[in-house]
């Protein structure tokens, strides 16, 4: 199976900011993303859990984005503008993807 080199960007971001992030990365030319729910977590701003919460204020989501290497910088810059003033983390790793024409 031939795999094509790509980058996997994983962003943990507040649910209230998620649509702003996906809008921004779309504008940065990214062709797709996947949003995962988060049960809870901890960081500099303390521990939290989603249980019993009604408000979007207290939740986070994970946005996963597979991109060609040459696009990762544009993506990260766009993402950074959104997360900059917010809590959350961004990580990137190398990966291989099938069906490279999709990215």
């Amino acid at each position, binding site marked *: 199976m031939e795999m094509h080199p790509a980058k996997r960007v994983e962003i943990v971001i*507040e649910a*209230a*900011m998620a*649509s*702003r992030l996906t809008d921004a990365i779309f504008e940065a030319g990214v062709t797709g993303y996947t949003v995962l729910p988060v049960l809870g977590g901890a960081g500099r*701003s*303390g*521990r*939290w*859990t*989603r*249980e*019993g*919460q*009604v*408000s*979007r*204020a*207290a939740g986070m989501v994970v946005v996963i984005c597979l991109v060609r290497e040459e696009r990762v910088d544009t993506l990260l810059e766009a993402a950074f503008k959104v997360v900059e*003033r*917010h*809590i959350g983390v961004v990580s990137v790793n190398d990966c291989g993807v099938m069906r490279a024409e999709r990215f």
Partner: protein
Amino acid sequence: MLDLAAANLLSPIILSFALGLAAAFLRSDLSIPEAVAKGMSIYLLFAIGFKGGAGVAEHGVDLRLIGALVAGLVLSAGLPFIAYALLRALSKIDSLNAAAVAAHYGSISIVTFVAATSLIDTRGIDSEGYMVAVAAIMEAPAIVAALWLVSRTGQTSNTDAGLWREILVNGSIVLLVGSFIIGAVTGKDGLEQISSFIVAPFQGVLCLFLLDMGLVAGRGLRESRGVLGGGAVAFGLLMPPIGATCGLAAALLLGLSTGGTVLLMALAASASYIAVPAAMRVALPEANPSIYLTLSLGVTFPFNLTIGIPLYATVAQAVNGGG
């Protein structure tokens, strides 16, 4: 009066909230799934909006409706200034966080409103159905006021067009107003069709919802021990009666019924813990959610639920010369 207070404190609703608090403090793993909590809040909004609308359909609307809406708007936009000044005077919380807190106290908590409705129902006091619309109109103006306060202190907030749309058409406002309209349009017939869904089990669902709020409030209090100083806590206990007093003044000016007076007092006294926190995360990300959530959900909400609402009801009854 003491009897009434005890009756309120020992109602299933309040005890369910207390149970949630207790479970959180005992570090029990009791928890209500997020989806179920959201489902219950949708149910409560739909039911309260519908019943308000059906009430309007039955009793008709008078000009006071417009007056009440204007009063709500003014209260929501005005109270943040009082809250801001009071919080700054009582505590060392900085201006940004104080503004964020102020937004919550101008806005409203719909569960406090529901609890007040339930109390006046128990005491057999009638109220204007359109108070639901007043509740809806009070959600957003406080946010504008608070952001203006922030800009005045030279700080920036992240406000884009999206934010205003999110605030104005946020789920709870749309559901409350929408079901109010449905209730008003379908009237008594509509209410009859679905009353065994929205009226009969209402108190019970409210119990479970308050159980959940107790759990969330209790866990929040446990996580954020030490975040609030004595001054901030004092603010959380003083601001509700101040808000209620403003609400009372407005209600007297408008000539609302005793029930309507209680509800406007409760709205003015209450602090948002759903819509405003979400807006603050977007607009003022540097403000600390522990401060405003703990104050609103951990201090002011329990105060209103246990002491505030019965107090407002007693005052309103005294002032209106009612039962």
